[in-house]
């Protein structure tokens, strides 16, 4: 009897739990949709504009937010065949590849030694590495101009290969220090007893175990190089050495004439590689940023 009497309130409790959950879900979806609209608006506008002819873009009668009734590829054709855009793309890819390799070659051993080996001043050094990252490139480009000039690298993309690591190495070192530190101490002790030296420990144990962190750092270095604007703008002025970001602006904006169709097309193409890389490595990236939390 008592069980039957107790039934209704229990059912109400379950019901209210479900209602709570439903409300939480509805609220989450509302906000997610709002965010998605907010962040997808610029790419949408880019795409719409990139597929319109110059006449359509400058027309006062059509709505700029609506897709063209007769989409065209004339912008991409012009961009590819009549500008130096392919050179910029190639230069960017080359610079990015070099910088990512240099960054990893410096940051991985640096992070390993700062994170795992106790030596005099290691703590201060680690903090110092991070502090250098806090100086913005908009300040650094002035003294670096002098440095690059003295090295005879002005107007050469090799200047960028030299300078970008000042941005990427400190940050990548920093996030990898955290990641290496999250690896249990017993793992290197076990490796020591198994007979590994520090180099073997790094390559056979730490890099594989900290791979998500390594990939996160690589993605970061890639993004920074791909999207950097101040340094190429400051150090490079001829087309054959220029990279995507500064090149697009300098080529497609002449005085007060903006070639919107091509600018949008260039921006879309430039955004594609990071997008693809993020899409494929997203899981690793997230795992890397939440270092330790996901490690089995």
């Amino acid at each position, binding site marked *: 009897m008592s069980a039957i009497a107790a039934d209704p309130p229990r059912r109400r409790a379950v019901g209210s739990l479900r209602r709570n959950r439903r409300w939480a879900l509805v609220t989450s979806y509302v906000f997610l949709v709002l965010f998605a609209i907010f962040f997808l608006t610029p790419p949408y506008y880019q795409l719409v504009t990139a597929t319109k002819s110059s006449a359509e873009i400058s027309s006062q009668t059509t709505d700029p937010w609506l897709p063209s009734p007769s989409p065209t590829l004339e912008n991409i054709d012009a961009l590819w065949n009549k500008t130096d855009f392919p050179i910029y793309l190639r230069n960017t890819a080359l610079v990015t590849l070099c910088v990512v390799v240099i960054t990893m070659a410096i940051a991985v051993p640096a992070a390993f030694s700062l994170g795992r080996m106790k030596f005099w001043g290691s703590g201060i050094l680690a903090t110092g590495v991070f502090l250098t990252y806090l100086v913005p490139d908009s300040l650094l480009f002035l003294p670096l101009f002098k440095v690059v000039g003295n090295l005879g690298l002005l107007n050469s993309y090799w200047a960028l290969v030299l300078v970008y690591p000042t941005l990427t190495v400190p940050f990548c070192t920093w996030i990898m220090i955290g990641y290496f530190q999250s690896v*249990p101490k*017993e*793992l290197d*002790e*076990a*490796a*020591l*007893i*198994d*007979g*590994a030296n520090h180099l*073997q420990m790094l390559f*056979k*144990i730490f890099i*594989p*175990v900290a*791979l998500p962190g390594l990939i996160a750092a690589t993605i970061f270095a890639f993004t920074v190089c791909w999207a950097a604007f101040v340094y190429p703008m400051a150090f490079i002025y001829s087309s054959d050495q220029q990279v995507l970001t500064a090149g697009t602006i300098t080529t497609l904006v002449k005085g007060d004439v903006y070639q919107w169709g091509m600018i949008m097309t260039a921006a879309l193409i430039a955004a594609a590689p990071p997008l693809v890389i993020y899409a494929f490595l997203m899981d690793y990236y997230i795992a890397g940023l939440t270092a330790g939390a996901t*490690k*089995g």
Partner: protein
Amino acid sequence: MARVTLNKVVKKFDQTEAVRGIDLDIADREFVVLVGPSGCGKSTTLRMIAGLEETTAGEIMIGGEIVNDLPPKDRDIAMVFQNYALYPHMTVFENMSFGLRLKKFPKAEIRQRVERAARILDIIELLDRRPRQLSGGQRQRVAMGRAIVRNPKVFLFDEPLSNLDAKLRVQMRTEIKKVHQQVRTTTVYVTHDQVEAMTLADRVVVMNSGRIEQVGTPHELYHSPKTRFVAGFIGSPAMNFLSCRLIDAAGALAVQLGEGLTLPVPAERSAAYRPYAGRALVLGLRPEHITESRSYGTGAEFVLPVDVVEPMGMETMVYVSVDGTEVCARVSPEAALAPGERMRFMADMRHMHLIDPDKERVIEAPDAARVNGAAAVTAA
């Protein structure tokens, strides 16, 4: 031949002395357990033998060679860690063979050694799995396998069972003992669990605040502890300690507890205890030596009200208060009375210990358990 010798070994961390000059000689093939409360220096000692901590002073010898300045890999040791420390990105086979691969052993020999160890540990079907696909007990087996394949001079175990649940711990304990019986390698094992120490060890080393309190076989430590610390640390439930006075009543010695409770000292111990007559001492008596009154028993009887009753199944713990000190008695389940009732107990004084409270040392006396042989032990 892998004898391990520690000679006046000291370890200081900045100003704190974790290990204060210990001497220890571990025979070839012996299984020695270092046991003590946390912070007693047992793990530090093990890590110094492994070479994971530098020795501040003193000498460590493995197989007759001083290893103080040798890195861990050159000491020919293998270690099993509390949290297993398996390489998460490698399969069980790769984990176990890592050390051999680094030493460039031929592939066929690596496979043979790994499979032999895997058979001993019954993990042959797990060789292709990764650590995260294994249960805690399986991981610990793999960690042991990694140690076995190296065929080292010395096995070091650092609290290897602490992360396992109670049932598995007992199983793995037996497993470790079985492995040692098969592989017969000198073993140093660290634990804070005295049951583990007693069940596994050939000899137990009890440590406390950086010093060795006593080294002995489990039997010796249990029946003839040398210090109050060892007496209290070994045995569960712990030995009862009661403030008492040793009195000389008409030629026969007796311990006088509070509330007019007086227990006679066995005659064979009189000679050893007589110099302490009249002094305030501490009486140590294990719970199993305070039982319900038995017609066939030979102990001293007394009656006290029961405070708390803890049934354990095959026996029942009964707590009573003697002069404000809680005393645990181990009685048969049928004999236990309810709390508040007055119960007749019997103390088997042949197993008593007297402790000098100034030195915290047990006063040496002939051990009744040995004097009277097995008959006395049945009182437990």
